[in-house]
């Protein structure tokens, strides 16, 4: 039997995104060169929310992009089925921009590595920063998030899932699933 624990609710998620938006602006002064890029699939909705917060605070339109990292994965040879690829939608040249890469959970760090390689094919950004809602540890590569919503220490066999209203039709929440001994 598995036990499912809710570790963040709707208000927690909203508060954390607001805080991250303020941190991004604080660190990047006027946030003029910022481009927000969400990693498919869950990073996209989070990036959209972060974007609307940032736009509300700065009262400016901030460029937005969507990144599909499938082509850059390092495990295409090892998985049994080819993953479904979605399109990448980055319309701006990223050269000299500050890219805020957004994903839901950081775990092994391999997704971030793939995303970094992918981003480099769109120009030479001035800087890339990483924003994640959850950092669950267990990194396999030397990468670190610049903005973290919540640190959640986990065991490797536990599962973290983010539910968002727009895609899952349930109230926003983050759950942790663990095997009951």
């Amino acid at each position, binding site marked *: 039997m598995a036990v499912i624990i809710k570790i963040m609710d709707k208000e927690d998620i909203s508060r954390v995104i607001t805080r991250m938006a303020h941190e991004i602006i604080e660190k990047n002064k006027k946030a003029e060169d910022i481009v927000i890029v969400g990693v498919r699939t869950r990073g996209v909705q989070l990036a959209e929310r972060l974007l609307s917060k940032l736009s509300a605070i700065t009262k400016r339109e901030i460029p937005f992009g969507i990144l*599909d990292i*499938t*082509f*850059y994965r390092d495990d*295409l*040879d*090892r*998985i*049994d*089925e*080819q993953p*479904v*690829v*979605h*399109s*990448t*939608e980055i319309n701006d*040249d990223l050269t000299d921009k500050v890219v805020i890469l957004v994903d839901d959970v950081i775990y092994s760090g391999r997704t971030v590595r793939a995303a970094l*390689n992918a981003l480099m*094919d*769109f*120009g030479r950004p001035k800087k890339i920063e990483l924003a994640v809602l959850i950092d669950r540890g267990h990194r396999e590569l030397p990468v670190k998030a610049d903005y973290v919503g919540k640190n959640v220490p986990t065991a490797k066999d536990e599962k973290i899932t983010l539910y968002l209203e727009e895609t899952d039709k349930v109230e926003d929440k983050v759950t942790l699933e663990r095997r009951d001994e």
Partner: protein
Amino acid sequence: MNKFVWKRKDLLGLEELTADEIIHILDTSKSFYEISTRAIKKVPVLRGKTVVNLFFEPSTRTKTSFELAEKRMSADIINVSTSGSSLTKGETLIDTVKNLAAYKIDILVMRHSVPGSAHMLSKILEASVVNAGDGAHEHPTQGLLDIFTIRQKKGRIENLKVAIVGDILHSRVARSNIWGLTKLGAEVILVGPTTLVPKHFESMGAKISHNFDDIIGDMDVINMLRIQKERQKKNLFPSLREYSDLYGLDERRVKKIKKDAIIMHPGPINRGVEMSASVADGPFSVILDQVTNGLAVRMAVFFLVTGGRKGKGIM
């Protein structure tokens, strides 16, 4: 997106594919289309993989398209064409291919004049085989890029009326199109003289017309095939001029087509025979879109056939 999972190691023809499989290739192609619009038109999907392009028949555009698709996916490429190959020294196809496979290649792209040759090789090779045309049998990537273009322009395939005009009898492009389009619910009408459009094509689920003017006003898509001038020598039609008069697409005939119809051609065009120059370059023509789309479709095919198999190499 669909939850469909691709299982095949080869792409041999559209006859054996299900509608779901065809749609999956088309959806995947959409994602690859974007790569060619980037400043850096290269992704590392086939990094470290070896692709052999083995062409036993002359080809410029198909070969170029395959080669560019391979390069944009970072594959290592070897091109083998008949003139320089040991087949002219009497080696059999199987020996040639086994020798290539001994280098542990990952994908073999082959064009050959014998129908079924790609199917045969797919059974003995562990590498993926992509059929780039086998005789008059199939040319699956051309069929797929045609269907992709129709879907891109018309938004759907179901219930569209698609005319394929010309030398259906000798055309692998026609066969792949008929299989694919009928599976996705289009109505396919084959148009040409009885010598080039024999009645037995009805068994593939297509309709037949010998009078282009009768049906032209009703078509959503008109796909014009190339007329090979050599065919006339075999008395399949009296003269190129008569063929052009009855089945060619010129300004006069284009006036009869639907306002939102599209005109296609797999190339190379015999301007003035099956299609006038002004029609080929005219507002209904999507011929160059077909070329652009071919690249995306071929990239998607490579991505899918190389997926998820461990321990590839030779037989």
